[in-house]
Each structure stands twice: as structure tokens, then as C-alpha cells.
């Protein structure tokens, strides 16, 4: 063990003497710190702004005057998605998805205003985040510092000396690996600190752990190459080509492959497919619509009355509630199909993690940070929940508080219109909305397949490293 430690220490001494290594580390640290600071600021700004917008929207709803309850159904409400705490490290899908949604009766709107659509367009890699710095440049740093580790000693002729002095091959490779491991661990400190402050120790440790696994994959891979190939040039060419494939080519090629292979219908497509179905449901604004005939008959039988005017509840409110329920069930069915298609695409994309550990760590990172597709869908579903409950709350007020007679007369002059209003106290049916990510355990469960892929990568490369270490000969 002490020999392993000595070799690791020697490697550090070598880096600290090498201008090139120092430059590499320096540039990496500078980019990382700047990106971390800027992302942190942006996340704080976004959180502040959206919380403000949310409370403002809630206050406006509550402060509406007395009016007809159905007016409030169309007045509607807004929900905003505050960023998850760990979005300060990995904002994930936040930039490319809408942050606010208008909730109203009879419709499910999409999440509007994605940051990226309004941001300055400076190319595909300009959405730099600390997460991307680790994914792209953490791995590159490991490659550039690690590629010479063994082959350098071989080229300089120091390898035989070391091996003859009683250092075993595996001690040699694991010593170098330990050096890279410590480098990776140190480089993850900023992430760990930010994550700890933002959410807490466990979440931050999980996120840092995922990146450590990823960097260990690279460290092991580059050492395998460095131990088996004969020249530094060769190791460097192959290692940087691998980096190019894993970090740039495979991810975007995978997107192409998955979008070819598993198409998902867009919102308008789903909407149009649905309208034919909806045609049969009837219009909730029109209580005389034949689609409500059987509902009406049942209701009359239930209260044992002849006419809707004699019902103890406001028939128009009952119809609004009934049709909202039917409509929502249909809307949800199509919305769910769209979400399922997107999830299926994500799962397919996840399988490309077997080819590119970067895809695996990126997906694990988004999952742990609470900025992945499941959290985006969670927002959509929770927003829909808020929508449905306040609309139905208002419909309940409509059927129970407002009389049918007053309701039918609502358009007959000023006084009648005043009578067809309910007290603003009823606007309290609206609940507060604060978007919070799932519990850490749940996020870890989502991240598990990706973490498993990383573990298999580590296992395979680790065995490879052990093997080449044993065979390391002068």
C-alpha cells in the first residue's frame, strides 16, 4: 500500500513540476469556478423571480371581487416552476422547457417561455453549466494529465528500473490511478460545497459521487491505454478520439437515432387527435347539450323532481363540473400518452449510456438534481392537478352557492347580474403552488439505471486495469 501511495505522490509531484499540467488544472479550475458562480447567481435570480411571480399570481386571484364563479374559471391562474436547489449545479432541462403555465377551465395549456428561446444564440455548447464542465472538461483533464502516466516511464526508460526495484505492476497502475482519483476528488470539491449549501449533505454527496464514478471511468480507461500502448502520441490520439466519441459524437447521434426510432406526437398532433373524441363529450357551457341528457335524467331521479329548476343544486354548475371531469379525463389520457412517449424516448436514450458514460452521468446528474424529464413531467402533472382542483372547486361553488334561477337571469340587467355573483371568499378554493423536487430517495431511484451503467463501466475497466497491471513488464 505504501508503494501505491508513493507512486501517487510522485505523480502529483510530476504534475506540479509540469507547466502543462499546471496550465490544464488552472484553466479547468478557472472555467469551473466562473461557471459555478454564474450558474449559482442565475439560479438564485430565477428562484427569487418565480417565487415572486407565484405569490403575486395567488394574491391577484384571491383579491378578485365578487363575481360569477364561472368568470373565475376563465380568469384562470398561473403557476411558475421555481428551480430545484441543485439546479445551481445542473439546471438540466430548465433552460429548454417552459417555466410558467396558464391554468384555466376546459384547456390544458403548455408550459410557456423557455429561457433558451429568448437567450443570445451563441452555438450548441454555450449553455455551459458546472455539470457540463465536469462532463466535458473534467474528463478531458483526466485524459490530458493521465495519458502519459505509464507510457512516459516506459519511453524514458524508468519503467524497468521501477519494476526491478520491487514495485509490482498493479501497484504501479493503481498508484497512478490513485493520483487521478485524488485529482478528480479535489476537482469535485466546488460542486460538493455548492450542493451541500444548496440542498444538503446527502444530495450533494450523491451528485458528487456520480461525477466521481464518471471521472474514475476515464481515469481507468486512460491508464489501460497508457499501460498497453508503446508511444505517448498513440495513447494521446486514441484517448482524445475516445473523448470526442463519448462526449460529442455519441450523445447527439443517440438523439438522432432515438428520434428516428421512437417518435412522440407533438402537442398539436395530440390535440387534433383528441378533438374528434371530444366532439362526443358535449359542450360544458351548454346545459341543454344532448350529451348531458342521461346525466340530467339521473340527477332528476336522484332528487325525485321533475324539472331542473326544482333541483336543490344549480344544474348549470353540475353540468360544468360533470363536463370538466369528462373532458379532463380525456385530456389527461392524451397528455399521458405524450408524456409516456417522451419517457420511452428518454429510456432509449439512457441505453446509449452503455456506449457513452457521459450520457449516463448526464442523465444521473439531472435525475439527482431534480432537473430531468421526470421532474418536468411532475411539474406538468402538478400544474394540471392545481388546475383541475380549482376549476372543480369553483364549479362546486357554482352548483351549491349560486341558485339556478339567479344564474339563468344573469344577463338580464345590472341588478340581475349582481345577484348572479358569489362572494370573493369562495376564491379560497385555490391552493398555493410551490414546485419542489421529489425526495432524494426517489431521485436516486430514477438515477439508478444510469449509475448502474457507470458502475459496470468502472468494474470492466478496473478489471482491465488489474490485468494490464499484472502483465506490466519492463
Amino acid at each position, binding site marked *: 500500500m505504501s508503494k501505491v501511495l508513493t507512486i501517487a505522490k510522485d505523480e502529483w509531484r510530476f504534475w506540479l513540476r509540469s507547466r502543462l499540467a499546471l496550465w490544464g488544472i488552472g484553466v479547468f479550475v478557472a472555467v469551473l469556478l*466562473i461557471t459555478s458562480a454564474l450558474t449559482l447567481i442565475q439560479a438564485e435570480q430565477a428562484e427569487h423571480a418565480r417565487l415572486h411571480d407565484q405569490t403575486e399570481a395567488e394574491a391577484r386571484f384571491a383579491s378578485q371581487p365578487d363575481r360569477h364563479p364561472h368568470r373565475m374559471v376563465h380568469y384562470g391562474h398561473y403557476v411558475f416552476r421555481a428551480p430545484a436547489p441543485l439546479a445551481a449545479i445542473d439546471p438540466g432541462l430548465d433552460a429548454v422547457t417552459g417555466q410558467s403555465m396558464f391554468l384555466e377551465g376546459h384547456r390544458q395549456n403548455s408550459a410557456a417561455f423557455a429561457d433558451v*428561446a*429568448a437567450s443570445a444564440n451563441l452555438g450548441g455548447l454555450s449553455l455551459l453549466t458546472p455539470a457540463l464542465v465536469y462532463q466535458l472538461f473534467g474528463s478531458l483533464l483526466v485524459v490530458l494529465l493521465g495519458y502519459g502516466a505509464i507510457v512516459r516511464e516506459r519511453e524514458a526508460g524508468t519503467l524497468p528500473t521501477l519494476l526491478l526495484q520491487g514495485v509490482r505492476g498493479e501497484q504501479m497502475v493503481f498508484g497512478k490511478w490513485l493520483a487521478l482519483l485524488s485529482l478528480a476528488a479535489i476537482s469535485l470539491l466546488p460542486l460538493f460545497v455548492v450542493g451541500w449549501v444548496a440542498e444538503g449533505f446527502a444530495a450533494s454527496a450523491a451528485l458528487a459521487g456520480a461525477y466521481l464514478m464518471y471521472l474514475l471511468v476515464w481515469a481507468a480507461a486512460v491508464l489501460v491505454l497508457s499501460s498497453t500502448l508503446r508511444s505517448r502520441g498513440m495513447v494521446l490520439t486514441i484517448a482524445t478520439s475516445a473523448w470526442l466519441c463519448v462526449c460529442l459524437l455519441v450523445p447527439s447521434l443517440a438523439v438522432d437515432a432515438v428520434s428516428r426510432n421512437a417518435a412522440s406526437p407533438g402537442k*398539436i398532433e395530440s390535440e387534433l387527435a383528441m378533438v374528434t373524441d371530444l366532439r362526443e363529450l358535449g359542450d360544458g357551457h351548454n346545459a341543454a347539450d344532448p350529451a348531458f341528457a342521461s346525466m340530467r335524467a339521473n340527477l332528476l331521479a336522484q332528487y325525485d323532481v321533475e324539472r331542473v329548476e326544482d333541483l336543490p343544486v344549480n344544474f348549470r354548475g353540475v353540468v360544468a363540473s360533470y363536463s370538466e371531469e369528462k373532458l379532463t379525463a380525456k385530456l389527461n389520457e392524451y397528455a399521458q400518452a405524450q408524456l409516456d412517449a417522451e419517457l420511452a424516448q428518454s429510456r432509449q436514450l439512457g441505453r446509449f449510456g452503455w456506449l457513452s458514460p457521459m450520457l449516463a452521468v448526464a442523465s444521473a446528474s439531472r435525475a439527482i438534481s431534480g432537473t430531468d424529464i421526470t421532474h418536468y413531467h411532475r411539474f406538468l402533472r402538478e400544474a394540471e392537478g392545481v388546475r383541475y382542483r380549482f376549476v372543480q372547486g369553483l364549479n362546486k361553488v357554482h352548483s351549491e352557492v349560486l341558485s339556478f334561477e339567479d344564474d339563468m337571469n344573469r*344577463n338580464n340587467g345590472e341588478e340581475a347580474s349582481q345577484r348572479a355573483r358569489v362572494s370573493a371568499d369562495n376564491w379560497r378554493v385555490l391552493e398555493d403552488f410551490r414546485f419542489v423536487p421529489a425526495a432524494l430517495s426517489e431521485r436516486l431511484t430514477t438515477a439508478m439505471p444510469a449509475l448502474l451503467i457507470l458502475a459496470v463501466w468502472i468494474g470492466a475497466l478496473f478489471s482491465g486495469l488489474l490485468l494490464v497491471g499484472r502483465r506490466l513488464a519492463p
Partner: protein
Amino acid sequence: MSAGSAFVREAAFVMRDRAIVTAVFVALVLSIVSVTSGSLEVRDQQRTIGSLLETDAEERRLTFFEQSDWGSAAYYSFHLTYDPPSAFAFAALGQRDSTAWKHRVRMLAMEGQIHERDAGNPVFALIGRFDFAFLVTFVVPLLLIALLHDLRAAERAVGRHDLLVATATNAKAFWFTRATVRAVGVYIAVIIPLIIGGVLSRTSPITMLLASAAVALYIAFWMWVCLRVSAWQQSAGAIVSALLGVWVLLAVVVPALGRIVIDQTVSLPHGSDILLTQREAVNDAWDLPVVTTMDAFVARHPEWAPYTEVGQEGFEWKWYYAFQQVGDQHVEPLTNAYREGRLLRDRWASRIALLSPPALMERTLQKLADTDIPASIAYELEVRRYHDSLREFYYPKLFKGEAFDPQAFERLPVFTPIAQSR
């Protein structure tokens, strides 16, 4: 020895170098993949538009003929608008992954509809597609680095460097020829699939010429960088590291910082303000005296001033659509500022891109492909114009109280994208 024959001799020499042939072959394969994948995506988008147009028209027909008055006809009829991909879009899909290129609108307030986003899977937008623009912008420089970094270092390593320099009549020209042959190889490999794709998609020759020239300049730039850095008396490892550093700086760090600086300095109205203001304006109108709404409406449409009388009782569609329009008028300053701000950010981005050739390259291809931010804003304006034409169609009928005529269905304004002519 003439430069021409030096080039031919060098080219013949290169053909025997396995590493170079491999790199050029890789460039060719990747270019074919990128062009094919971009073309398939464009074809899918065209098919989606085609099938949507069909169902949309059918659905509108069914809805329209169920109505018995103009107000309901306008309320229930949706109209599909779309931004078809340009002929060259296969090379640079640009903003089309993250911004909506199709909307279904009706005659209600525009602001409540235009911000709807029917965009695809956000994970795709985040990772980005493997289109030609991505290949050229990010991958080709790395291939060039792989090919050109060890021109001298490799010769130095095998001890031929000094001999070569001593026997060449002009050492500088010698290395230049060497680098040029390799760079031209890569250029030809990436450009041939692009040209084939362009011919198949009937891209205009001028666009193809401009794109090819831009790619040539871009490759020349990276060749120059590689030559400069590899002239450095250092090991191949140091040179590669330095070149990768330049790549990281130009392709990622400068654009990322530029984006943040621009976004922070050019502020935009908050989307939430646009939505809330619009909603309040439309909603308040229910409680305001009809005259207030109609006065604001007539200020924009004086031709309807004589027809603004609304009865004391009940509900009139013309008043309803008037306050929808007034709602839009109300947020116009915000929404104009939002659009102008985005354009201003884009203009600043075009300046910052001068500091980052990769950003410049990608932006150039997106501009040629009409998949940049101005193009998506132009589409938004087309949707607004179309929406205006719907209003022009219905206002006479609503304000003059014309009797409903289902046959008018055939005269409904039809959305025709300007882009269809490109």
C-alpha cells in the same frame, strides 16, 4: 519546384499515410451521417405539417358548419400556422428543436396563444442533434487538430525534421503545403455529402456556395491555428493540449460567457408580466363599461366607430372580440419590447461571435438555413399577421351584424408561410 507539383507530391505521400486516410474517411462518414439525419428530420417535419394541415382543415370544416353565428364560428374555429423547414434546414436545424414552429390559433387575444410551445422532447433540445452545423463547428476542428498537431513534432521525433527544413527551399511553404493537403482532404470529405444533400433538397446554388465558402474559411482558420501552435518547439502532447485549450476557449468558454453577459445586460420583459398583463386586461373588460372597451378599440379601428353600440342586456360577440383585441393592444408595448430585446440580444450575439469562430460558423449556417432567432421571430410575426387577417375577416360580419353564412367557410383566410417561397 512549383507549388502545384509540391501539392501533388504531398497528396500522393499523404495517400500512403494510414492515419490521415482514416481521419478523412471518418470525416466523410460523419458528414454523410449528419446530412442524412438532418434530411430525415426535415422530411419528418414536412410530413408532420402535411398531416396536421389535413386534420386541421377537416376539423375546422366540421366545427364551422356546426355554428349558427359569426361569433361562435370565430370562437370555435382553430387555424394551423406553421413554419416549414427551408431547403437548407437539413444542414442546421438550429432553433427548431427548442422553439415552436407550429401554432393553432383562433380569433381570441393573440397574446394568450402565441407563447404556447409545441416543442419536441426537451432532452433532445438540451443535448442537440447531430446535424452538419454541429459536425463542422465542433467536430471538424478536433479532426484537424488530430491531423495537424504533429506535423513537425512527428518529424522531429523520427529525426527527419531538420533534414526536411534544410532541404526545403522554403521551410514555411513546406509546412504550409503539408497542412493544406490534409485540410483540403477533410474539407472535400465533409463538403461532398453537403452538396449532395443540397442538390436533393433543391437548395439554391447561392446558399450552397455561401455555405461551402464559410466552411472553407472556417477550416482555413483552424489550419492556421494548428500551424501556429505546432510551430512551437514542444512535444506533441503539449501541442495537442494547447490546441484543445484553444478549442475549449473558442468553442465553449467565449460563447458561454458571451451568452451570459448579453443576457444580463440586455434585459427583457418577464414572460410572466406579458401573460399577467394580458389576462388582467381581457378579464377586467367584463366589468368595465362597454364604452371604455369600445373607445380603446375604435382608436385602433376607426372604421367600426359607427357600429360600436351594444345593447343593454345580454352578451354581444362584437364586444367580446373588441376586448380581446384591446387586451392585445394593452400588452403591445411589453410584447414589442420582448421581441425587440430578443433581436437586440441576437445582434449582440452576432458581434460576440466575431470573437469565436465556432459560434460564427454555427450562426452562419443557421442563418443560411433560416433556423436562427430572427427566422423564428419572423415566423411569430407571420402568425400575428395571419391572426390580424382573421380579425379583418370577421370584424365586418360581427360589427355590421351580417347573417351567418356557412358558405363563407371557403373565404376564410388561409395561412401561407412566406417561407414557402424560400
